[in-house]
């Protein structure tokens, strides 16, 4: 066996990936393993809690529960990775606030002490994209590419909280027009194409999806019109909640706005590590790309067959 792995991370799952889009969880596990990174389980972790939802209800609760999640990784002694922009937003912002505001840290630790925990600030919360791009580096990841998808046009969706607030993110303050995610996508040979308002929000965040689903779906409608006009074959994202909104929300937009969108939307939504895994030659089953048709009413809601059909020959 290979012995010590080069990188070790605590894997923060969150809610939407494990509980609604488990193909995202399994593809992250498969790709990180393939890249020589060891994934440690964060036993007993909870909701991050969601930054626009539970933070909007009660900031101290948000901070204390986020800090508790961080202490689970501190006990493991490794940095946290998450594949969700929302969890990243919470863990990173809470971590940042606790590192910079001693009063808050004191308050949080008074609560944590009651359950025998203490926030130390000894580890860093990272997005999986940050781990791929900054810890491993593009050249290293590129070395694993086996199949190139020369004919594939991709609409890259960053989502919001991977970029913003930019003063608490590791991208040098660039939130208006970054390229890092496009660069990762393009090592697979796929072409990231420009589309109007590429960096616009999917519409789900900030408790809006729960508040008024039609408003969230209208955000998605606007994005999907722009993506369709660009001629993209698929959407690639890096957040399970955006993924849910662009997949399930695509169905909702097709329903609520059928009179104004013309043809129904049917753009396959693929998570970053599903695409990467395919280009590495990982079994599509492990990447959650083969749907069990005995299950009904489960994700993905927009069929991904056109995507598989498109790249099938290049996988041989």
């Amino acid at each position, binding site marked *: 066996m290979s012995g010590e792995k080069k990188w070790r991370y605590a894997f923060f*799952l969150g*809610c939407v990936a*494990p*509980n*609604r889009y*488990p*193909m995202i*969880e*399994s593809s992250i596990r498969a790709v990180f393993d393939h890249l020589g990174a060891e994934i440690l*389980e*964060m*036993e*007993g*972790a*909870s*909701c991050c*809690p969601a*930054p*626009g*939802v*539970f*933070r*909007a*209800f*009660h*900031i*101290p*609760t948000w901070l*204390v*529960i986020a800090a*508790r999640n961080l202490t689970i990784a501190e006990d493991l002694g490794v940095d946290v990775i998450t594949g969700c922009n929302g969890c990243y937003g919470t863990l990173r912002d809470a971590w940042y606030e606790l590192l910079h505001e001693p009063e808050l840290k004191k308050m949080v630790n008074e*609560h*944590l002490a*009651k*359950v025998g925990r203490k926030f130390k600030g000894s580890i860093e919360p990272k997005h999986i994209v940050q781990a791929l791009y900054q810890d491993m580096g593009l050249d290293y990841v590129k070395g694993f590419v086996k199949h190139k998808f020369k004919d594939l046009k991709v609409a890259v969706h960053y989502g*919001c*909280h991977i*970029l*913003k*607030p*930019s003063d608490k993110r590791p991208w040098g303050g660039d*939130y208006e027009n970054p390229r890092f995610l496009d660069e990762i996508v393009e090592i697979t040979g796929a072409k990231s194409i420009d589309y109007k308002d590429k960096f616009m*929000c999917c519409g*789900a*965040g*900030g*408790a*809006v999806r*729960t*508040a*008024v689903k039609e*408003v969230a779906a*209208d*955000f998605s409608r606007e994005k999907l019109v722009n993506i369709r006009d660009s001629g993209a074959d698929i959407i690639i994202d890096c957040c399970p909640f955006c993924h849910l909104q662009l997949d399930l929300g695509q169905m909702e937009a097709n329903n609520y706005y059928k009179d104004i969108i013309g043809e129904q939307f049917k753009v396959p939504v693929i998570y970053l590590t599903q695409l990467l895994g395919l280009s590495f030659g990982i079994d599509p*089953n492990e990447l959650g790309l083969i749907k*069990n048709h005995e*299950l009904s*009413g*489960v*994700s993905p809601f927009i069929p991904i067959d056109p995507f598989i059909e498109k790249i099938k020959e290049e996988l041989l």
Partner: protein
Amino acid sequence: MSDNVEKYIKRKVYKKENSRIAQKFVDAGLEKIRSCINCGTCTGSCPSGRRTAYRTRSAIRKALTGDESVLQDIDIWLCTTCYYCYERCPRNIPVTDMIIKLRNIAVEEGFILDNHFTLANDIFYETGHGVPANGEGNKKWRDLRESYGLPPLPPTVHTHPEALKECQELMKSVGFRDLMDNVAEKKKQERAEQEKEEVKEK
């Protein structure tokens, strides 16, 4: 920052009759918004305002003048927290964070949508997840996990009851349990008053 600007920002502000809520705005650190020049960059950058009646500048203005009606508007719940207003504000006001603080005050005053209350009180507090996979109704999601070779439930609070208890203990300690109970009580009173009025109308 020059002294007179500093003084201007910290000046006593005219308060409407309900100074209790205006004071809450100040206590929450919302006085940062006194440096707002009403340029409208926040509203212009807001993807929600393109399709709803939510106007960031207006919400900020109301908070600044102690106009408590901002707490009752559904508008502040239509912000997706995309952070464009925060990033682009020329006065460096953390606008999105201010909206979040307004929401905190709104909840405290009992202004929370039923869906949000259920999510916080019945789902998050009870399961430790915002989107759970346990319980009878979620069997299909556990089956889906298994179809991809994953255990039916993740190694989270879902499979660690002691961890869920710990989360609930923390939520009690930090005041979340009391907050939810107070909100439930306010919602109950509100419903009773509504019913009374309906009876009157008949």
